[in-house]
């Protein structure tokens, strides 16, 4: 008998159906990955097992853990099971811990709440388990508070809390989505090791197919509350049946064709750029310290070139982006666009600004919710001396919207009427409308589902041909940068550690940091290779 058996699980919240006839099993020592795009119901499946669903949830079917049906278990008995028989790890390590309690207390609490050990022994066990997850006491005393730890370290604390009582089943809901690739690799290794050592079952929820293929013994693919396909990882990768599964894998490894760039002629030049931030004073009378976010960065972006900028969070990508946009001053060095400096004190130089536009990551925060699309995408007209009026304005709007695959009538709608992918199209339309020489894409596809992301990447490739785009594509996602750029810069701790032709850098990295980044990034398996092997 399996450790966890979910049979015909149905869930509705507020009378809208969330899950339909979900059935799956997890055995001891087995890693089962549930994957799918947003709205597939994968997280709700996890919460249903924990019985931590939102209020007004109605469930039917059965969820059996070791033969006990959790759906009919009382809340009191569930409390006894949670934390001892089932542990759970969440997506956001930054907010998953109580900010006002020490990590030692929070781990020991799991033990104490189940009265599994006397307090002294519980503290001992907390120490053991924190060491096991990679936080030894000599470096990370139990008296640390969560805000004194990094995201990856906090996720280790959350894992320690979840496994403190050696649960039979561990549920991990997107445990590495909020983390950098190198940290992600470490956390995934930790989880794998724990499953093997403790013979736990792991139910892992993730949207990342590369992680899925790498980790899971079995895969469950979900779409809109239903399971579309399930099978042992190797077998499923080799013999995908459902078109949705095939589409997901195809979109995850989606490649685009870029037109050949014209011969080099410099557009943007960054020379020895330095950007310092003032740190809060450490004592009342000492001079405040500095944090160097961008350290002696130099590069050139040529007309018609697509340049990538990769690096982990905190490496200075965003600071550099703001400096290029002329929003913040440099402490040393220069940034020129078309020969003119981008930063001109407090009154922006419109002459330079109108040659540059930007597309941001968050499709929900990028627009003023109170304005209509026509007003939103024409905001850059403010940069023009004689902005188009009347029909010329209307034509420009219609043209920009059509170019990004939307309808001219969408101009009269408000932003909340659009999906995430459509909003990103509108953001591109806003960037295109004054035909800038340079567009900055700041993590512009990072918040999108894979299928939508593939469409936006296609749109980019089309626009490259139609508009001769020059862009700087800033992202932490190596696979995306690899397909949409000609050249790439690798940034670490404020410095550019490596730059070169994208394909060369990825296939033959020189700098140790680039090597470690590429090694840590989970890769989609070569599907054609797998199917050949399995035929043999």
């Amino acid at each position, binding site marked *: 008998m399996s450790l966890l058996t979910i049979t015909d699980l149905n869930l509705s919240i507020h009378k809208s159906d969330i899950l339909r006839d979900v059935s799956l099993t997890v055995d001891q020592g087995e890693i089962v990955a549930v994957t799918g795009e947003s709205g597939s119901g994968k997280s709700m499946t996890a919460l249903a097992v924990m019985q931590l669903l939102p209020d007004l949830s109605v469930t039917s079917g059965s969820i059996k853990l070791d033969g006990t049906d959790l759906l009919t278990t009382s809340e009191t008995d569930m409390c006894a099971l949670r934390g001892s028989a089932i542990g759970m790890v969440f997506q956001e390590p930054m907010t998953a811990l109580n900010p006002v309690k020490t990590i030692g207390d929070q781990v020991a609490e799991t033990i104490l709440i189940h009265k599994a050990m006397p307090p002294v022994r519980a503290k001992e066990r907390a120490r053991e388990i924190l060491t096991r997850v990679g936080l030894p006491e000599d470096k990370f005393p139990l008296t640390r508070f969560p805000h004194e730890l990094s995201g990856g370290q906090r996720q280790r604390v959350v894992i320690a809390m979840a496994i403190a009582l050696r649960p039979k089943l561990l549920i991990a809901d997107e445990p590495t989505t909020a983390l950098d690739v190198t940290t992600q690799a470490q956390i995934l290794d930790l989880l794998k090791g724990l499953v093997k050592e403790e013979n736990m079952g792991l139910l892992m929820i993730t949207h990342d197919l590369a992680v899925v293929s790498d980790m899971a013994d079995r895969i469950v693919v979900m779409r809109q509350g239903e399971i579309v396909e399930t099978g042992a990882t190797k077998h499923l990768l080799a013999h995908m049946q459902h078109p949705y599964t095939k589409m997901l894998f195809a979109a995850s490894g989606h490649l685009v064709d870029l037109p050949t760039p014209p011969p080099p002629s410099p557009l943007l030049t960054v020379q020895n750029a330095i950007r310092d931030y003032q740190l809060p004073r450490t004592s009342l009378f000492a001079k405040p310290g500095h944090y160097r976010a961008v350290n002696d960065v130099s590069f050139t972006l040529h007309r018609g070139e697509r340049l990538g900028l990769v690096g982990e969070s905190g490496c200075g990508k965003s600071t550099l982006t703001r400096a290029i*946009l002329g*929003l913040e001053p440099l402490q040393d060095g220069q940034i020129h666009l078309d020969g003119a400096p981008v930063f001109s004190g407090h*009154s*922006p130089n*419109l002459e330079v*600004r*109108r040659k*540059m*536009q*930007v597309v*941001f*990551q*968050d499709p929900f*925060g*990028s*627009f*003023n*919710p*109170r304005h209509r699309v026509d007003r939103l995408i024409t*905001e*850059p007209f*403010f*940069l023009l001396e004689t902005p188009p009026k009347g029909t010329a304005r209307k034509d420009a709007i219609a043209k920009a919207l059509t170019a990004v695959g939307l309808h001219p009538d969408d101009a009269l709608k408000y932003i*909340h009427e659009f999906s995430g992918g459509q909003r990103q199209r509108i953001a591109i339309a*806003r960037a295109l409308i004054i035909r800038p020489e340079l567009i900055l894409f700041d993590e512009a596809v990072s918040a999108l589902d894979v299928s939508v992301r593939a469409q936006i990447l296609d749109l980019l490739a089309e626009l490259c041909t139609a508009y001769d785009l020059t862009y700087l594509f800033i992202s932490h996602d190596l696979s995306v940068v690899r397909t949409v750029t000609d050249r790439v810069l690798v940034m670490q701790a404020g410095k550019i550690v490596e730059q070169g032709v994208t394909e060369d850098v990825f296939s033959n990295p020189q700098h140790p940091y680039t090597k470690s980044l590429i090694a840590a990034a989970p890769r989609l398996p070569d599907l054609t290779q797998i199917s050949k092997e399995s035929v043999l």
Partner: protein
Amino acid sequence: MNRNLIIGTVLSLLVIFAALLSFIWTPYAHTEMDIPNKLQSPNWQHWFGTDHFGRDIFSMIMVGARTSIAVALVAVSIGIGLGVPLGLTAAARKGSWLDEFIMRGNDLVFAFPAIVIAILITAVFGAGAINAIVAIGIFNIPVFARVTRGAALSLWERDFILSARVAGKSSARISFEHILPNVMNLLIVQGTIQFSLGILAEAGLSYVGLGAQPPTPSWGRMLADAQTMVSFAPHLALIPGVAIILTVLGLNLLGDGLRDYLDPRLRIARS
């Protein structure tokens, strides 16, 4: 539907209507004394009874509503007129000496409760309804400055503000074009709350003689007059008190209702 909003609107409109009507009609002139008929309990001639001078309490309540509303309204306008620009400026220049200066100034004004300001003004310039307006108005400034700054700061973090900056717009223009419309809902709600607090504060100040002076009728003064007679004519204290409570309750319900109605997050959660 939104019950708070309906009850709040009805109560508030009722008070405003009474105040406006008092300009053209009251059952009796509110200053008209009628000693033989003093201290009557509510009856058909005098719906709310009469006071110790035989004045008609219903008429005094109507005219008193005028004083309360006028004082609170002007005080809120002072708060919004000065506090909102200060809050917007502080947020636009976050971390600068100007921001620091505005916020320290705010803290300082918070250290002077409205009644203390009223005491200071009255001690030097003498009593009057203007004192109440100025005292409550000054008190309102940091309230609005803080609310505006807090909301504006989180908006300044948003990408659409960054887009506007990329479009070359100055921070003053961004404050008015993007920030102000997005904090408007919050200001309306806070404005309603401060309005109701203003009514309460005005009553308190007039009660201790720091607000409207006779013969201007005000609910707080009516209560002060009633105090010595409360044992044998409790309606003198009950009626103005209930008038204050209903007005403040109405405005608070209106504020809560507006918040629920205007907050799009809550609306999505409901539908």
